[in-house]
């Protein structure tokens, strides 16, 4: 039962607004309970700072310019790493989905590499790349590669062969067949891969920045830990959550725009 059926007055309100606000109810409730727990002394401040303390710390960092710079650096690393790993993963997914030769040559190797936890490679990566940008970009790209590769491959393989036959009969060239039948058919799967990849992207970046960086959100969190600034640590965690949510929302918006034909995206 949706909220519109339970609350009669809600029926007269525009549905999208209710849905948009509803998703924030639970986080807000948590925030309020958290603040209450700290203010009443239920939660000692050395275990968990109050939301107000976190906000104050955040404000100070914002004013000094540190916060903005660290966010920007992390964002840049994440995007570039995602683009690199995503494009290579996409290219391999296409190649292995469309060409039997390519699939036979590369798929087994890729599956073997996939099963190595990429975060476990961090010591090796530091040895190879040092602790400059390329190390972090390499790790992010590696983490992002596999979900996009596998889901692109799956998407291409499961395009309805009857549609491909129809395209052939109606005189579509290979290029048109790809653009009008295979790629749109694979797109829902590709988006699944993108959403997985976005999660892994943040995870990888945070860990990489904690271990081998001199800037960025992970570095900021690590420094705060060294100096026992718990409020900054909590702030970093909240920022990760927020950035992750923004990335996911951006992905869903793109999905809604390109997949509006899909029955799942149509309003009842």
């Amino acid at each position, binding site marked *: 039962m949706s909220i519109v059926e339970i609350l009669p007055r809600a029926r007269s309100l525009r549905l999208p607004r209710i849905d948009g606000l509803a998703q924030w109810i639970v986080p807000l409730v948590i925030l309020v309970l958290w603040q209450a727990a700290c203010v009443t002394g239920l939660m000692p401040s050395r275990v968990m700072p109050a939301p107000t303390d976190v906000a104050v710390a955040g404000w100070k960092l914002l004013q000094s310019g540190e916060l903005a710079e660290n966010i920007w650096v992390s964002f840049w690393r994440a995007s570039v790493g995602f683009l690199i790993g995503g494009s290579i993963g996409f290219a391999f997914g296409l190649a292995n989905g469309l060409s039997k030769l390519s699939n036979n040559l590369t798929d087994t190797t890729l599956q073997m590499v996939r099963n190595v936890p990429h975060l476990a490679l961090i010591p090796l990566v530091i040895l190879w790349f040092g602790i400059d940008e390329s190390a972090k970009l390499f790790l992010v790209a590696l983490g992002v590669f596999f979900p996009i590769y596998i889901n692109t491959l799956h998407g291409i393989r499961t395009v309805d*062969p*009857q549609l491909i036959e129809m395209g*052939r*009969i109606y005189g579509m060239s290979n290029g048109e067949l790809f653009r009008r*039948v295979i790629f749109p058919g694979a797109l829902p799967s590709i988006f699944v891969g993108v959403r997985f990849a976005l999660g892994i992207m943040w995870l990888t970046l945070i860990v990489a920045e904690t271990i081998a960086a001199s800037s960025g959100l992970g570095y900021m969190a690590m420094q705060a830990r060294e100096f026992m600034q718990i409020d900054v640590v909590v702030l970093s965690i909240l920022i990760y959550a927020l950035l992750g949510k923004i990335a996911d929302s951006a992905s869903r918006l793109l999905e809604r725009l390109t997949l509006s034909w899909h029955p799942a995206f149509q309003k009842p």
Partner: protein
Amino acid sequence: MTIQQSLRLSHADARRVEAPAGVEQALAAQNRRLQPKRGAALTIRGLRKTFGANEVLRGIDLHIPAGQFVAIVGQSGCGKSTLLRLIAGLEKPTAGSISFSDDIRADNIRVMFQEPRLLPWASVLSNVEVGLGRDRRTTDAKARAEQALGEVGLADKRGQWPSVLSGGQKQRVALARALVSHPGVLALDEPLGALDALTRISMQQLLGRVWADQGFTSILVTHDVSEAVALADRVLVIDQGRIAHDITVDIARPRQHGAADQAALEGAILRHLLGETH
């Protein structure tokens, strides 16, 4: 066929005629495109098709004059769909030949399947435009597609996604797609099999009407003998990979379901079909 198999199929089909060069010829080609084409005749000689160890077609010899409506009936597995697919160029014969009258290009054969096979991510109008083949990019493509949609009575649905249409409506869009380029031959592989009885009858009437209007050669594979008699000039009964009977349907059009002469012919054909069981 798999994606990889499909992409390996060559476009260099033996039946293809080279596109003419030169302004006069280009104008003539455009003229041909804009005028409604009449049907193409086709001749099949000694056609055989084997799948592995299974010989599905064992020597078919057939001539279909231009503009004729032929129905092919037979038991399941008799090879009627295979014959249609060979004619449409979806399979290659193991032996024998299929040839069309001179001025036909290989992509002038259109097929309608049992499933509508519409692209779910394109609008109804876009799907019909697919049927124009290489003419898809021309400026009058949209107008021609709209006209074809109008002929099947779905002009008002042109901007919709296929997922909102009913089964019968989707098949009508598929029919518009098949006819928009005014093909010489229309091959129909049990196109009405998935529809309910009433929709089937109205679709049969639609098919009969557009065939009478446009005059293409029509080859319909169906398991429904009454459908065959209602629509066709000629009914072929396929049995054991050969044409067992070639029956002319002499009944005047428009044909009435349940009319005495139609029912009698249906009965005769059914006796051939059922009497052939072993």
